[in-house]
């Protein structure tokens, strides 16, 4: 759900949260037919109960002018977002791994970020020399990349050392008023997952007991 919180914040949209704490809450959602595929995230927006993170993000981006001006700009935004999604996916499962698998996964995250993803985005910014990834205006792709950078930095704080364009990009996006606000304590941004979070998720969903590191 964090990417959804980021995007709503970047769009300047206030939102409410119902936090899942018990299995009973989740079972009630299932019984009420609120979850199309029995899964969360679920976002109630404009009369719809939307599930599937990508569908939710797409809708918010489209309704807030964050998905480019035409089909080709949208294609670029989609490509970039799929890349940052793949990168963040590696980090998302991290808290659920065994200590041994965490070590392997940590190495994989840093390796993929440094050798595959960050070079791609660095090149995009360097080639067109503009402030934003697509079409010289702020879009979903920028906020998603920003979130990914911060997540990887939490694993290795100097991971941007070889990427000057990304460093400048990060500084620029951080200074945008809504982003700045979201980065401040007291916002709805959530902290790095801890053991309590892992225990809650496992208990509520009754899954993720045996997650393995990515190959």
């Amino acid at each position: 759900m964090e990417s959804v919180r980021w995007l709503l914040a970047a769009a300047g949209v206030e939102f409410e949260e119902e936090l899942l704490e018990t299995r009973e809450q989740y079972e009630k959602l299932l019984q009420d037919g609120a979850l199309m595929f029995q899964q969360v995230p679920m976002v109630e927006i404009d009369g719809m109960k939307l599930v599937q993170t990508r569908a939710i993000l797409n809708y918010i981006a489209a309704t807030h002018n964050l998905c480019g001006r035409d089909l080709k700009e949208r294609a670029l935004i989609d490509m970039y977002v799929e890349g940052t999604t793949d990168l963040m996916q590696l980090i998302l499962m991290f808290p659920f791994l065994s200590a041994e698998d965490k070590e392997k996964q940590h190495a994989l995250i840093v390796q993929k970020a440094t050798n595959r993803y960050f070079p791609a985005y660095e090149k995009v910014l360097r080639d067109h020399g503009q402030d934003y990834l697509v079409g010289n205006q702020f879009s979903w792709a920028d906020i998603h990349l920003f979130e990914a950078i911060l997540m990887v930095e939490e694993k290795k704080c100097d991971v941007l050392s070889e990427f000057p364009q990304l460093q400048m990009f990060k500084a620029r996006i951080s200074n945008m008023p809504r982003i700045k606000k979201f980065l401040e304590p007291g916002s709805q941004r959530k902290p790095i997952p801890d053991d309590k979070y892992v225990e809650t998720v496992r208990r509520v969903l009754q899954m993720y007991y045996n997650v393995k590191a990515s190959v």
Partner: protein
Amino acid sequence: MSGKPKLTYFNGRGRMESIRWLLAAAGVEFEEDFLETREQYLKLIQDGHLLFDQVPLVEIDGMKMVQTKAILSYIAGKHNLYGKGLKERAFIDTYVEGTTDLMQMILTLPFSPPEAKKKNLPLIIEKAKNRYFPAYEKALKQHGQGFLVGNQLSWADVHLLEAILMVEEKESTVLSEFPLLQGFKTRISNMATIKKFLQPGSQRKPQPDDKYVATVMKILKEG
């Protein structure tokens, strides 16, 4: 330069198959470049054609597109298969994410070790019968039209048909409790462009075999 989209991928289904389906449904002719050696793949990377060093790659309208979802969204948007308006698009996205999750499980199956395959196949069938197909059966019932969204064919319908056929290849009676999905399958299969794609000689690829798996692993040198 023919102006037709060019697909670069292994000679098999994998992640490119959904793209072949969607292009076929849209009545768009396409060319294919098959990856057979690691050298071909490394050359693509060296020449800077692969944004994230990955295939599928689709060259279309002057762009070198990667990332399956991005490619499918572009094709759907261009060929009037993405609904009318943002709410229809949101529904299509939701449905496609569900069928993606289901097909993803089948996609990775050939690449897992034999014990995992034996264990996972029944789980996939169970998810199809208890999670995904009930959701689409309900969607068709509530919507009351021939299609999942709006009243015309969309990306969601093509993707669901592909998913149904993939699961049926694993268990042929899987739709027995889902009368609306059975009707849906027949109807969509009979649409002219889809019917053509289902016939022998089309660019639809067969189920992955050991040779395909070996080729992919050799070229990517992963897993």
